[in-house]
Structure formats: C-alpha cells, structure tokens
C-alpha cells in the first residue's frame, strides 16, 4: 500500500476491484464503512457478487481477465472529459516526456517484439534525451510523441461499447463507474483502489495494476490522503518477508540479486545504480552502493572487507535472462533437477497453481524439510491421494514451529507498519520458534563445514551468526542487525557517531564499510531511541487524518503515505485543504521561501517546493517522485517486459476465439511450460466455463492454519463451487449437490452453491455469446477435514503467469462442471 488502512476513511470514492476486502481483509471495512458514512461512494467490480458487493453503492459484474479493458475505458473517459488534474500530470508525471521515434504500437504489438524469443527489446521504447542526457519534455503536453498524446492515442480504441463487449459489463454501469471515479480528479477529492490477487494472478497482472496506477496519476490521486494504489496483502507478514526479499531476484531492501555478468562489486553497483543528469531529480537510488555494501557488512561482519569486496563473490549469482521463479522452480523440480527442498510455513501442494504438477514434482526429491504448525499436504504428499508411499524415495523431516503468540518479533502489515509482538505462552510441547530452528540449523551447517571443509566454505563459516542470547534466539539482536550499526567512529553530515551504535536512519549509511544495515529500508526501525516497532502512542499528527505517527513504525523513515510530495501543489500547499498530508511552512521573504519546514507526515524528501510563493521556480527543489530515476510518476512505463502501456489480452485459457481489441490474442510474452503435465485448453468445448479462485473470511490461504480449528470449519466445512441459477438449470444441478469440476489438468469434487450472485454475462454485443462463470475457494486440502474429499482448487489451475512477476494465472481459466 502506498497509503495505509486507516487512511481509507479519508477517501471520497473507493474502488474494490481485484479484491474482496470485506471477506479477506475484514477490518478494512471499519474504514470503508467510515468513509461511506461520510458520503464516499463504494464501487465493487467483481465477476461474482461478494460480501464486499453487498455493501457497495455500485456493483458491476465482469468477465474475469478483462480488467485492462475496463480500466483502459476509464482512462479514455478521463481524457475525453478532461477530468485529470492538469498541473499534477504536467509536473509530477512523465506525461510531458517525449518518447523516441522507434516506439510504435500496431494492432496489439509494441515495437521491438521478437517472435522467436517471445520477448520485447524495450530499448525501442526509450525517451528522447537532450544534449545533457535529460529527457526531453513538452510541459504543454502537445508534442505528438509526448507520453500524453501517445496515451490518448493508445486508449482511443477503448470506447465503452467495445469494453462492454469484451468484459460483459453493461455499458450504463461502466459509464456510471467512470463518471463517479473520474470525478475525483477535482482538486481536494481523492479516490482509492483496494486490489489484491484478483489483479496480480493474471498473465497481465502487472499491467492490471499499472493501468490503475496511471488512472491515479491522471486524477492526482497518488500521494494524497484517501488515495494511492493499495495492494491488500494477504498474509500478516508478506509485506515484511517481501521487504527482506525471500525471493530469487532481490536482496533485502529490493536490491538486485547479482547477475553472473556483474563480475565484481563495482560492476554490480554500477549496473544497478541509476544515473540521472537532471539536477531536479533526487534519483534516490543513486545511494544504491551505500545500501548494498552495508548489507554485505551485516551478512559477513568483520569478514567483509574492502579487499574481498565485502564478501560479494561469496554470495550466489543468477544467470542473466534466466528465471528462478515459483513456476520455474516447480518446473525444475518436476524435471528432477533438485535433491533437497525446504518448505517454511507454506503448503505448495495446495497453494501453487497446478498443484497436481507440484505434488508429482515432490516425488523427485531426495529430501524435504517441512516446517509448520500442523502437518500439511506438502509434508505428507507421499501419503496423499494417488500416491504409493512404497514407491516414493523422498525423506521428509517435519519440524514443528511455534505459533505467533508463543514467540517475540515484528511483522509488517500491508500499510508498511512494522509491529512488535510479544510472547504469551511458551511454545507448545517441543515446538520451537522458527528463529530458533533457523539459528540451530545454521550452527549445525557451520559446524559441518568447520569440521570437513567441503566446497567454498567461506560464505558459510564467515556468515555473521551471533543472534543467540543464553542459547536462545534473540529477535532484538536481529532487529538491530537489520537496522544497522556504525562499524567505526565516523562523522556523517556534521554528526559524529560512535562505533557500535545503531544508525539513526538510512541517510547515514555509507558505501565504504563504515556502516552495516541488513536492510536499508528498515534503517530507523531500531535505533538508540529504542525499538520503534513496539511503540503504542495514541496521538495523531497535526493534520488529524489518522496517521498515528507514534504507533508502531513504518518504512521508509516512518513515512505513512508515500509519494506525499505529490499531495501538494508546486508551492508546497496541499491540493486538499481538509485532509492534507504535508504542507510547506517555511518563512517567506519578498515572495521567496527562505527557510525549509514541512509539517504533517514525514515528507518524501525535505527539499524546498518547486516554486516560491511568487511563482518563480526554485533550482534547489526536487521532483516529487524521488524513487524514479527521472523524478516523475510513470504514465509511460518503459521498464516492463510486456509494453510501456497496458493493453488488453485474453487469458491463456479463455472462452473467446479472438481478442476483440487487436489481433494479438494473449499476452505475447507470457510464460508457458512444456512438460507433459502442462496442458492449456482454450476455447475447448470440453471446458466451456470461465473459472476463478478466491478465499473466504473463515479460512486462510490453503487452510492449514484454519481447517484444524473446529470453530472455523463449522462455518465453512467443505470445498464448494459457486454457480449461477441459469448454469445450474442448464446442467441439472441442485443447490447443495456434490459435483465434479474439471480442467485440462485435474478435477475436484465439490458442493454446488447455486446462487444469484453469479450471473451469466453476454459478451461480444447483442449477437454475441453468453459466458458462464464459476468460482472456487482454494482453502481446502485432502488432509483435513479427514474425509479426504475436500481438495485444493489449485488442482485445476494452469502453470502460466505474468511475464514481469511470473505470478501464476489462477484467476481466469476454463473448466467444466458435471453432476456426480
């Protein structure tokens, strides 16, 4: 979330699309309700009428997988009706940038596509630079190759009629939504988007979100209270675990995992440190080497020195251009390319797309370590349906973990708040906190390499591993390591610091080894002032918009609303006088600002505003979007692998034989896999119904933590499929009957819920066709309930996904339903 949960109450219009907040983030409705009571409009767009829709002022159904068509139509509506905030887009976004002549877009394809590799050469989409290497701009937005004009051109095709033909959403509803949401382009108004896996789990997932981000930029809704682009993260610490980068492609704090071509620390830092020649661009990532070197110091402590590149070579490198992502990982496992596998608090036998493939893949492992509270379908895969234990070689170690309330440490919520938890009871039986397990395992591995050298022992024996106190895992020691220490007595920006003291914030980190920080984003979270995440202050900030700056701690540097420099006009005064986030309060002398003071939230960089009160431009200011190389929000996004503007493509499995928007059918860069398990069937009469998956409030993820709880199982005891009354009639299915759902990859027995909340949609216009949609919760698995019949809906889903993130496409695929 660019904003945070409480801030939803400041919104004038709330769009819930690609998520079902009332069911999956129930307490968010505290703030949705508060906003509605103050007059905000709640819009729910979803293939299915949900508990969220039940509270909406406007509900619109849609065909799953057509979000870009719907949102692209909104962009066109905003542009046609000039609803955008013109000053905002001129100064804070790249709308004025001039795109180079090599950029083209023809009938669904952008310039630079290579049919053979299924990849784009995105250098064809680069901006035109002036003699100083600064992007050329036309702040009047008139240049025909300006982003603004290209945007107009690109979305001119997305008229309401065509959008309705693609999405099945009635034209009148689309127009109502566009008008209502677009109205927040007015100064002082804000709209917010609450989205989740309903947007990410598509072959166009990244572009779904980009389309919305572009809308928010056009309307001036980024950085303001009640606005932003808000990913509702689904796990209590999926934000923190992402910040610490338990992902193949990034190191803690979103640093890059080194590629093989980054042959030295210098080469690595050079490659990944962006360079801007524009003096008005803060280009915050220019500090990259300070963060990477400080991180290496935390990894290897005193063993990390200038002479050994701070241990850079000891850490693994990935091959350039190769993916090591979830889908790729299980593809490799399926092919028998791993011997060992760790699974920590996760259940890929049920949670991964194409779960059947994943379960087969596990048979090829020599050993697996499964760490969890309960046994699950992954650790016990060898005794699951269709498995013969006598033929499965995999050794499995199950390590019982403590529950969250039995240990101490912090987690980071979706609003980027890191919050400290305390130990209530001791871990049950012989279960242990994960931290203790990791520390002890690390010590065992270190001992093994000290005893018998083996290959490249240095990274293992040199790994700094002093996080025990009296033999017990000490979260405070790790939290301090993450924050970082001064490694020697140094003076930074005129302030003297002692060796061994905690670094006050990332502004003080150094690239010469004189500081450590396990994760620069969290530098400021545990300082000499104490454990900031443990704070419980009840006082609000002076703007009184629910920031609660003394409660817990939020990255970066306790900034509660990021991009907040865009919440003010060029003179530093808020667009919204009532719900202001920050405002400039420096002294004025003869029409000029003469001192620097911002009040409200922690500003996104404390520089002077762009303009003085007399309208003259300042040279010591910085553009609002400080994390972007050129300082501007990206309406044109040349960094994505599948195009700088989002474009509607059909899901890999879909009910239509062509894309009505262009002759490019599906995302031309979406990954597909080639094992015999990987079957994709589109427009196949055997699988005529559009399917999607979701969660329910009563269970969580694959249900490992909730299916064992009688109170929760009581409310949702069985896996189900929701189908419309019309489809039920067509297939002769009665409410509550067991049915068999099948896709090209697997089948699932489930209970039919025949409901008014799914309705057949007519697509492709009046002479078009009727599309039936069905939906499954993915919170079940064979192990519990003990009947063994309530299985994972991911047995049906395909292994394909978004080409940028490689998140699987589990929200739009094709199935059949039949009576048993």
């Amino acid at each position: 979330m660019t904003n945070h949960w409480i801030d939803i109450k400041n919104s004038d219009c709330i769009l819930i699309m690609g998520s079902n907040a009332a069911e999956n983030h129930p307490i968010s409705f505290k703030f949705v309700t508060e906003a509605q009571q103050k007059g905000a409009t709640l819009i729910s767009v979803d293939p299915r009428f949900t508990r969220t829709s039940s509270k909406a002022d406007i509900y619109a159904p849609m065909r799953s997988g057509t979000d870009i068509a719907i949102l692209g139509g909104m962009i066109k509506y905003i542009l046609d009706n000039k609803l955008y905030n013109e000053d905002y887009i001129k100064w804070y976004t790249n709308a004025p940038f001039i795109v180079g002549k090599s950029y083209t877009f023809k009938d669904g394809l952008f310039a630079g596509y290579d049919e053979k590799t299924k990849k784009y050469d995105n250098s064809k989409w680069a901006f035109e630079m002036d003699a100083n290497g600064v992007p050329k701009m036309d702040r009047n937005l008139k240049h025909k190759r300006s982003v603004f004009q290209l945007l107009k051109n690109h979305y001119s095709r997305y008229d309401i009629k065509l959008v309705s033909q693609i999405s099945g959403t009635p034209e009148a509803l689309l127009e109502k939504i566009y008008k209502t949401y677009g109205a927040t382009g007015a100064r002082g108004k804000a709209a917010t988007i609450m989205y989740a896996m309903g947007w990410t789990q598509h072959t166009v997932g990244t572009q779904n979100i980009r389309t919305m981000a572009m809308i928010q930029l056009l309307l001036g809704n980024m950085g303001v209270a009640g606005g932003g682009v808000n990913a509702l993260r689904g796990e209590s610490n999926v934000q923190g675990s992402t910040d610490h980068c338990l992902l193949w492609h990034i190191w803690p704090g979103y640093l890059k995992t080194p590629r093989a071509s980054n042959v030295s620390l210098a080469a690595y830092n050079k490659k990944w440190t962006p360079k801007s020649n524009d003096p008005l661009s803060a280009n915050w990532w220019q500090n990259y080497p300070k963060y990477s070197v400080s991180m290496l110091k935390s990894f290897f402590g005193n063993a990390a020195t200038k002479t050994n590149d701070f241990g850079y070579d000891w850490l693994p490198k990935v091959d350039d251009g190769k993916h090591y992502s979830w889908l790729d990982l299980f593809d490799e496992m399926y092919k028998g390319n791993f011997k060992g596998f760790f699974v920590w608090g996760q259940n890929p036998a049920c949670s991964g797309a194409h779960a059947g493939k994943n379960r087969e893949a596990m048979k090829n492992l020599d050993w697996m370590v499964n760490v969890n509270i309960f046994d699950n379908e992954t650790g016990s895969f060898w005794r699951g349906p269709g498995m013969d234990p006598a033929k499965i070689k995999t050794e499995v170690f199950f390590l019982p973990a403590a529950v969250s309330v039995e240990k101490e440490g912090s987690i980071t919520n979706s609003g980027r708040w890191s919050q400290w938890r305390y130990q209530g009871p001791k871990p049950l039986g012989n279960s242990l906190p994960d931290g203790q397990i990791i520390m002890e395992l690390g010590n065992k591995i270190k001992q093994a390499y000290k005893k018998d050298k083996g290959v490249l022992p240095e990274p293992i024996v040199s790994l700094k591993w002093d996080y025990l106190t009296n033999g017990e895992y000490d979260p405070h020691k790790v939290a301090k390591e993450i924050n970082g220490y001064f490694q020697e007595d140094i003076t930074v920006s005129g302030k003297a610091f002692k060796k061994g003291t905690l670094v006050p914030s990332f502004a003080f980190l150094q690239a010469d080894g004189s500081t450590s920080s396990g994760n620069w984003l969290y530098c400021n979270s545990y300082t000499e002032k104490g454990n900031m995440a443990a704070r419980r202050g009840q006082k609000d900030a002076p703007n009184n918009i629910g920031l609660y700056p003394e409660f817990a701690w939020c990255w970066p540097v306790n900034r509660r609303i990021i991009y907040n420099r865009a919440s003010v006009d060029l003179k530093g005064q808020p667009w919204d006088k009532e719900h202001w986030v920050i405002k400039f309060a420096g002294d004025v002398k003869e029409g000029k600002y003469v001192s620097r003071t911002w009040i409200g939230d922690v500003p996104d960089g404390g520089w002077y505003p762009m303009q003085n009160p007399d309208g003259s431009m300042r040279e010591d200011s910085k553009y609002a979007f400080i994390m972007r190389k050129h300082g501007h929000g990206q309406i044109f996004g040349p960094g994505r692998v599948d195009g700088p503007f989002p474009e509607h493509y059909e899901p890999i499995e879909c009910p239509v034989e062509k894309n009505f928007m262009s002759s490019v059918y599906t995302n031309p860069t979406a990954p597909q896999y080639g094992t015999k398990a990987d079957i994709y069937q589109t427009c196949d009469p055997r699988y005529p119904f559009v399917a999607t998956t979701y969660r329910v409030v009563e269970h969580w993820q694959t249900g490992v933590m909730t299916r064992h709880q009688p109170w929760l199982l009581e409310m949702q005891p069985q896996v189900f499929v929701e189908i419309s009354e019309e489809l039920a009639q067509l297939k002769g299915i009665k409410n509550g009957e067991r049915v068999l759902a099948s896709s090209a990859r697997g089948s699932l027995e489930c209970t039919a819920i025949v409901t008014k909340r799914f309705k057949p949609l007519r697509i492709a216009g009046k002479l078009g066709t009727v599309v039936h949609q069905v939906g499954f919760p993915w919170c079940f698995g064979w192990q519990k309930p003990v009947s063994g019949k309530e299985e994972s809906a991911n047995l049906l889903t395909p292994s394909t996904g978004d080409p940028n993130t490689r998140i699987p496409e589990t929200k739009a695929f094709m199935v059949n339903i039949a009576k048993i």
Partner: protein
Amino acid sequence: MEVTRRQFIQISSTTAAGLAVSGLGFDLVPVKAHAQMLKTRYAKETTTICPYCAVGCGAIVHTSKRGDGRVINIEGDPDHVINRGSLCSKGAALAQLVENEERVTTPMYRAAYSGEWKKVSWDWALSEIAQRVKETRDSTFQYKNSNGQTVNRTVGIASVGSAALDNEECWIYQALMRAIGLVYIEHQARI
C-alpha cells in the same frame, strides 16, 4: 509492553446487580459460565498482532498464570489504532489456533519408501538435515556458469517460505539460504 488506555464501557450499578443476583436465595449456577468473575482476571496479558491477513490488527492474549500456562482467551486490543478491539471470525478464533490438539509438537521423520512418520529428537533431525545440506551442496555446487562467469551457487536445493515468519526470522533465514548458495528462493509473495 504497555497497555495504556482501556475503553471500558460505562456500566452503572453493576455491583448492585451482582448482589441482587446472589441474594435471591437459590442456586444460580447457570448452564454455562455466568460467573461474575472474568475468566481472564488472573491471566498474564500480552499484546500480539493477528497472524492472518495483512491488516495488522492488535489482539490481547490472556495466558494462565497457573497450571500449564496456556492461553485462556484472545480478543481484540482496544488500544490498537487500526482495529480498536475488533476482529474477524479468524481473529476471534485465534485461541483455537494456539490451543489445538492437532498441532505437531515434536519433530518427525519419514524415511524413504516408508508409509509412516516417526518421532525424532531435534538434535537428530537438525544434524541429519545439516548433513544432507552439506552433501547436496558439495555435490551440486557451481563455481562457474556455462559462460565461465563466477556464480558460486548451490543448484541442488530449493527453498520456499515464508510470509509466516517474523521479520527478524525472515532476515536470518534468507541470510542462511544465500550463504549456502541457494538461488531458488521463493515465497508467498510470488503466488
């Protein structure tokens, strides 16, 4: 930890009510617990954050100070500025997650081709795992890739997880995995 400001609702003449009930002169032991003494009265109170979705609601854990020291109640933290004491059905059931007889409380091992789990000690399990990590790493380690570039990586082991870990656990976890040389490191954020 400080639990500062409880927003108790105002109840008038509750004491009188209590007296009135006990003064009726007959057995009022109800069907279920209607005791006037709260079951949480002599419990240790700690604050926690709900482990399910990422709203980050606060809860108060009541742990018995007597007997086995287990959880007797978990409910919303009224001083938490997000949820102000409220919780959803999963959050409201938290006590049943902790005090659950189906939890596994000792390490287990399933041998190759075996049809069952057997209970093992922590020391045995961790020693065996460390040994397998070393064997697999040593036998699958790549110093260089096919282009001759230094890669120093272990390709025979993959690891997934976990958004269920605390921040501090995440950090030491990824540090260990990367030090071992893993490149296949993934978790819930990818799915």
